[in-house]
């Protein structure tokens, strides 16, 4: 899954075509302009999205849990 995410990110890296002015009618141009690209490498980290899911995985994998907390979910609307 995360390999797929990485591939998608790589393919969506901004290109010179993004320099066009957007008029809201070209959805492909919009997606290239708005969606995150390869510059957002942190999205390739396999984050668990909740404390309890992270804790459960830490127990299963016998690894320490690294928890990143913010006002507003860091992977959502922070």
């Amino acid at each position: 899954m995360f390999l797929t995410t990485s591939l998608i990110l790589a393919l969506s890296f901004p290109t010179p075509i993004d320099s066009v002015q957007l008029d809201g009618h070209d959805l492909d141009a919009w997606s290239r302009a708005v969606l995150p690209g390869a510059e957002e490498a942190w999205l390739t980290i396999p984050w668990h999205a909740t404390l309890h899911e992270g804790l459960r995985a830490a127990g299963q994998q016998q690894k320490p849990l690294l928890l990143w907390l913010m006002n507003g979910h860091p992977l959502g609307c922070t």
Partner: protein
Amino acid sequence: MAGRRSVWNDPRVIEKVKAFVPATDEVWRLQRHQDRECRFFRHKVRGNPAPVGGSWQGLYIFAPDGTLLARRNTLNPDAAMKLMDSGLEKWSALAREERKAADPAEYLPQHRWENSMPTDGLVLRSTLRDLPAEGIGPEGRGRWNRDHAWFNREEARSWMPEEVSVRQKHTLPQALALRLARFHVVDNVSGQEGPYATDDIEHAEIEIEVTAVEGNMATIQISGVFRSESDGVYKLGETDWRHFPSRTRGIDATLRGEATWNIAKRRFSAFRAAAHGKAWGGSGLNGRRGVTREQPAAIGWYFELVEDDPRDRLAPAFIDVYNADWVIQPDA
């Protein structure tokens, strides 16, 4: 917000994270709510499960049983590296019996908004980004943020006209257009912003037209207009957002989109829409400076169907004020 790039984009940090199970969560709930998961967190951080004020944003390293090994709030990648090294040093010093997992009965949540995620409705990932007036150039792109928009099965069906045939036109029910205007066409590009109240919405309208039907697949074109203006007076009653700074602000945006409706399965197989518009004002917490009605920020929103990714299970930021009867409340 800034930590996304300053800390987590650092290649050293990304490599070091592999020694851990990485997780993220929203800290307001963990600090203040009475849910078992929140009480567990507070007990492990300070030895007391009582709610706590202020902001506990930052990085934490726990053993699997919840023992706190290290904690720091930083936007500096070097400091984050030191924190992780410190946590790993303490972890390696733990005896085998000190590395055991916590009993899930201690920490499993009694309520999370994610439990209300529609499994047979319409779940959209929303990405919004500042669009520099001079266009998107090689110097980089504007700041961005992400949210999700949820519609249950009946609400998803209500995006379609009663009769699904070519040239049929339909207006999205006002309650759903208002949901988009109040909670999703919002300027939270640079950080958290509060929801709009119904009284703040001057115009919220979405028109749909069926443009093709082939077998069970119907294609629709979507267009919409959103105009919102808040006088800065909080109007939502007793919610978590009551504590959020409320100031004058506004949005003026138009939306275009296309989607494919599977008539037999009564669900969307494709959906994407983009909105563009201008935003001004705001809470002051969202990193905006000098964005006024005269000099607004240009923003693009992009809505798309979610994929099979756990991170797309995150609840909408304003799910607690959706006021939809299918959303499970914490005290239900």
